[in-house]
């Protein structure tokens, strides 16, 4: 049988099944993976005590000195893995919601989902003395924010900037309530919570990252399942329905998934904004395709968050500045650029 293969695609023969792989997408995935690995090693090597990248690799391979082992495993790895997991989660969540709402600016960090998640964590951390970080509270707040948002905007796909402005007002509101909760406590009592609300990864521990990673891994099959109907949704609801997609079910599933993933990503290092917005944009720029696959968006999220984290640590030495401040500065510029570039799109 002689079927024609579209250009730019790899054909993979596995017994009887044939898999077509988008060449550009996979090359870019590989590129992002390598970048992430490099940044990972670089990130572990940076810190108050000097350590070369070679030493980092040796230590990770189990051949480092005792001191290096303690430095890597006890101090630096928790932070770096936290950044990777949070970045992956944010990239994923951003890609899901952007595709669902068909709006580049509609991401959990812009429309208040992250702020809702962090508010829940703050409230549980401040008012219930639990002894451990209440990361599990984050989906509650995120769901609350999402419900508020969708009650107010029934058809977000058709409302463009309106949806975003409402989302921003909701995040201002949650933010203010969070500040209110914190202002009832003296700063010494607040400790790391205050820095966490700006997006800080210095105090991340495995107790938080581990369960979140496990949940995210458990969600992966669902992601794979949803990738195809997600790709079909961009042709519009009617077309997707004709192509055999159960539209309301898929939409609800994507939304629920996105909120859960976004809130878990927030629970690690706080409400880091603009990563979820920027990651899918970078991914689609890399693939030259308006809709990049979820995994690539996730990788881009991790690379960007890691890059910001490294940047802020190098620039601010010896001080500890929250990573979220760097993403805010860089992301603000990106948003301005997008708004100016997108001149013809009025509301």
């Amino acid at each position: 049988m002689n079927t024609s293969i579209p250009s730019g695609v790899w054909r993979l023969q596995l017994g009887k099944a044939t898999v077509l792989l988008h060449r550009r997408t996979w090359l870019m995935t590989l590129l992002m993976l390598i970048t992430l690995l490099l940044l990972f090693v670089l990130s572990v090597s940076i810190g108050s005590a000097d350590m070369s990248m070679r030493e980092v690799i040796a230590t990770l391979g189990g051949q480092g000195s005792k001191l290096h082992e303690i430095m890597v495993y006890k101090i630096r790895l928790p932070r770096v893995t936290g950044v990777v997991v949070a970045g992956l989660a944010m990239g994923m969540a951003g890609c899901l919601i952007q595709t669902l709402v068909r709006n580049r600016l509609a991401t959990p960090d812009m429309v208040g989902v992250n702020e809702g998640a962090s508010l829940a964590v703050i409230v549980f951390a401040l008012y219930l003395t639990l002894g451990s970080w209440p990361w599990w509270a984050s989906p509650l707040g995120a769901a609350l924010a999402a419900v508020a948002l969708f009650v107010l905007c029934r058809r977000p796909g058709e409302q463009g900037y309106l949806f975003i402005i409402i989302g921003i007002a909701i995040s201002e509101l949650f933010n203010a309530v969070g500040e209110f909760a914190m202002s009832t406590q003296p700063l010494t009592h607040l400790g790391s919570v205050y820095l966490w609300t700006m997006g800080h990864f210095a105090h991340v521990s495995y107790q938080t990252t581990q369960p979140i990673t496990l949940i995210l891994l458990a969600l992966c099959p669902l992601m794979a399942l949803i990738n195809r109907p997600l790709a079909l949704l961009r042709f519009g609801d009617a077309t997707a329905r004709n192509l055999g997609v159960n539209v309301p079910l898929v939409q609800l599933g994507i939304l629920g998934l996105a909120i859960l993933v976004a809130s878990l990503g927030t629970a690690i290092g706080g409400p880091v904004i603009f990563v979820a917005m920027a990651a899918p944009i970078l991914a689609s720029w890399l693939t030259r395709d308006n809709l990049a696959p979820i995994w690539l968006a996730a990788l881009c999220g991790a690379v960007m968050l890691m890059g910001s984290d490294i940047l802020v640590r190098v620039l601010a030495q010896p001080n500890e500045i929250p990573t979220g401040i760097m993403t805010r500065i860089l992301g603000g510029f990106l948003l301005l650029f997008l708004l100016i570039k997108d001149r013809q799109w009025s509301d």
Partner: protein
Amino acid sequence: MVKTAINLPTHQWALLATGAALLTALLMLSMATGAGVYGAAQVFGYFRGDAALLADDKLAMIIHTLRMPRTLAALLVGGSLAVAASLLQSATRNPLAEPGLLGVNAGAVMGLVIGLIYFGVESTQGYLVWSSAGALLGNLVVLGIGLMLGQASPLKLILAGVALSAVFGGLSNYLLLANQTALEQFRFWNLGSLSASELDAVRIITPVVLVALGLAAMLCRQLTLMQMGDSQAKALGIHTTRVRIGVLVASTLFTACAISLAGPIGFVGFLAAYCARLVEPVKLITQMVFSALFGMLFLLAADILARWVIQPFEMPVGTLLAVIGAPVLIAIVLRGGFRSLLTVR
């Protein structure tokens, strides 16, 4: 009937009188509440010149260093932000515009932080200069973007303001945390609070606010005519660029004054200017008078509330206003109120 030089419909006179009466009541309440055991009777006795009360050092201290400065600061800041919002709303023809939402507040904060950290500024005059520089930068960028985007996208301009706030806010937080200044004190100021106002600062800021008010009053007529569009205004002989520069200067001064006294306070300008436009949609001079009145009323009421909600702690008034203002913003956006300025009345 008394013939007046200013022509106002009766209902507007009535509203103005009610507002003024309410403001007086709030002023008294503001002087009578707060930390310390002194109530209304003692405070008014002090002002009437009761000998026994005049001799009370503690009462004098509370009045002169705590309650009076913050009450006066509330008037100055509320009025400034409200008039600045009215100016920006008509200059950008965007009913959601205000220094806070457009990122001008964040620019002023960044200017002040740079002055504080790199130039060791400690006086009110210094704060004023540096926050003016920051506010000017913010105004230039956001008004420039506004011109670039055109008037077709009021929501987009607000998003640009959000982006600008993120950049400026991120930079000032970065500078502050990297320099380990008194974080506790700054944190409260950065949320917007009147609690640290001083009488000396009020004395220095007042003339600047008055100058800006004068400038705003001069611009009113031209700005009103510019509502019809630039080409129409030019045909009527208005130098639109000159008016825009005037708006830029006035808004910068207002914002800088408010920031130097109380830190960034969002939403109050937007709320006041929005209500003022409901009262008087066309004539800008009347609109600004009402805007200033509402701004003072809202901020004073919010400040009294902020002292009272979570006693013995104090809530930053900016936070309180955000809790009130954000739902109002949502309601207005949902009702499509943001289009009202675009339709010619």
